[in-house]
């Protein structure tokens, strides 16, 4: 009886000093490997960008081999999304939204092609190859130099021409563009 009281008291003391453990009724604790396998997002500030690096010069032959069949070249459009040109067309009746004329963040270009391209074989290239193709797209759109090294340090610093033209519409569209006056 006495021992049991001591046990109770010590349990209460323990309870007072530790914080409540985070518990899931039916979930399983996730390991870093669980997260890394499923988390492909990279952010404009560079968060979660991988190691590796590339240049437009290295990217040109990769683009021609893997991407031109659908996306054409800077000189000739392909069947799918146009990636080059269109500068100055946004806001006109002939808007051509490309990587160069419309995309606000260079990290998005890398993030998207790294996880989704080539369309029939996504994730089939190395991080340095994806950095190189990103560099090629930025170079052909007149945003970086042909020999500029693109990696997790330099990519977030690339300034995209249309970056300042996006307006937050959540939770409300700004008055100027609102239909509900």
């Amino acid at each position, binding site marked *: 009886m006495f021992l049991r009281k001591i046990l109770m008291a010590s349990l209460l003391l323990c309870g007072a000093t530790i914080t409540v453990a985070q518990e899931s009724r039916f979930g*399983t604790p996730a390991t870093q490997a669980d997260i890394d396998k499923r988390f*492909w997002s990279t952010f404009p500030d560079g968060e979660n960008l991988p190691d590796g690096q590339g240049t437009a010069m290295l990217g040109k032959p990769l683009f021609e081999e893997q991407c031109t069949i659908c996306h054409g070249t800077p000189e000739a459009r392909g069947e799918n999304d146009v990636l080059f040109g269109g500068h100055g067309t946004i806001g006109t009746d002939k808007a051509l939204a490309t990587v160069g004329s419309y995309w606000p963040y260079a990290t998005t270009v890398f993030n998207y092609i790294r996880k989704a391209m080539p369309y029939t074989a996504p994730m089939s290239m190395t991080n340095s190859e994806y950095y190189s193709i990103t560099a090629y797209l930025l170079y052909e759109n007149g945003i970086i130099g042909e020999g500029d090294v693109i990696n997790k340090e330099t990519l977030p610093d690339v300034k995209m021409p249309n970056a300042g033209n996006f307006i937050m*519409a*959540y939770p409300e569209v700004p008055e100027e*563009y609102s239909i509900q006056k």
Partner: protein
Amino acid sequence: MTEKNKTLVVDPLDQAAGNGLMSRRLFLNSAIAGGATLATAGNAFAQEAVVGEGQEEWTLMPGDDLPEYGDVSRYEKGRVKRFVAPPPGLATASLSGRTPLHLLHGTITPSGLHFEVTHHGIPDIDPDRHEMVIHGMVKKPFKWNVEQLENYPTVSRQYFLECSGNTRVNWADPKPDQNFMYMTHGLVSGSEWTGVPLSTLLDECGVSPDAKWIIAEGADSGSLARSIPIDKALDDTMVAIYQNGERLRPSQGYPMRILNPGFEGNVSIKWVRSLYVTDKPVMSRFETSKYTDKLHDGKSLQFSLEMDVKSVITRPSNALSLEKRGMYEITGLAWSGRGKIAKVEVSADGGRTWAEAMLEGPIQSKMLTRFRIPWMWEGRPAILQSRAIDEFGRVQPSRKELLAARGRQAYYHYHAIHSWSINARGAVRHVFA
């Protein structure tokens, strides 16, 4: 006397607005006069026949065995189907399948006819090898497979889903699109979704008070990702595992998907496998280069997530012409991403006069609401329109008002009043009015 020469008598007391719109009361008060044709009786006294003579063959023999999974009638096969757009370019999967709204009734879309838009095809996911992980700004990351999610108390709610590209042709096209209405309006559907509230799972992980966004990623071959505002995620976002009472179809995110009621469809990530809790949006391709609304001044709206108040008349519409003069029911669907539909008004004279339509209940928040109104068509030209108003007083705009505010390049979130013109022969065309 032919039908055309009959004089149609309309009681002025039953008129609700110009050009034949009738009071909703007619649905409640008047019995529909229908006469069954009397069959001529055979001479049973002269030579008595078996009693089944004249019956159809299916009445005279037992039917088929019961299938384990029911299908539509073979006479319906191929008639009621989605419009599936051909692949838009080289090497890509079909982009969209559109719901044939004009052939459906009620507000629940059969699962196999629910619209879908997929940017990287439909993955064939083995549920035993699929898990969803919640991580980032949480005290402890956890993961779940679909069997683990099954253990939680679930909620079932009816919600519409709409692609924000629905009706997009009406922005830039100089002339009204004459494709059947499922081409223009078929990217909206309604279903009962069952799942675990996302807030339940977030609570178990312990979300940081500094969290502002959750980045959801799918397991499709594009790992499609969108940012969800934390207030939404903690409000009514669910991890859905059932649609219309059965496990999700592969095209709807099997074995688990995010369902953000009232938001543009693209944010309700299918095949979800990662939810990263953070303080900033990811700025993925689908929230920067796509699903942003280009304005007339070169700016673009971003994160225009809530679907605007909208409606469309599904009958009559340009796939269903009027064959003769007489009483018709005008019916259609209305919805708002912010809440309930409060009122739908219908015009038969291009917006000069409006009458309130009957709303079929129960009216549910962020779900399709069906409206109906009787209409006496006397063979004169008409322009039919519907205008929805939600519980917050938001009014569906005219096309003119919408274009004045946004320009013509927005591509997404077109939600203006839709106009069907009817000529003296009963042919229905889409017009800008």
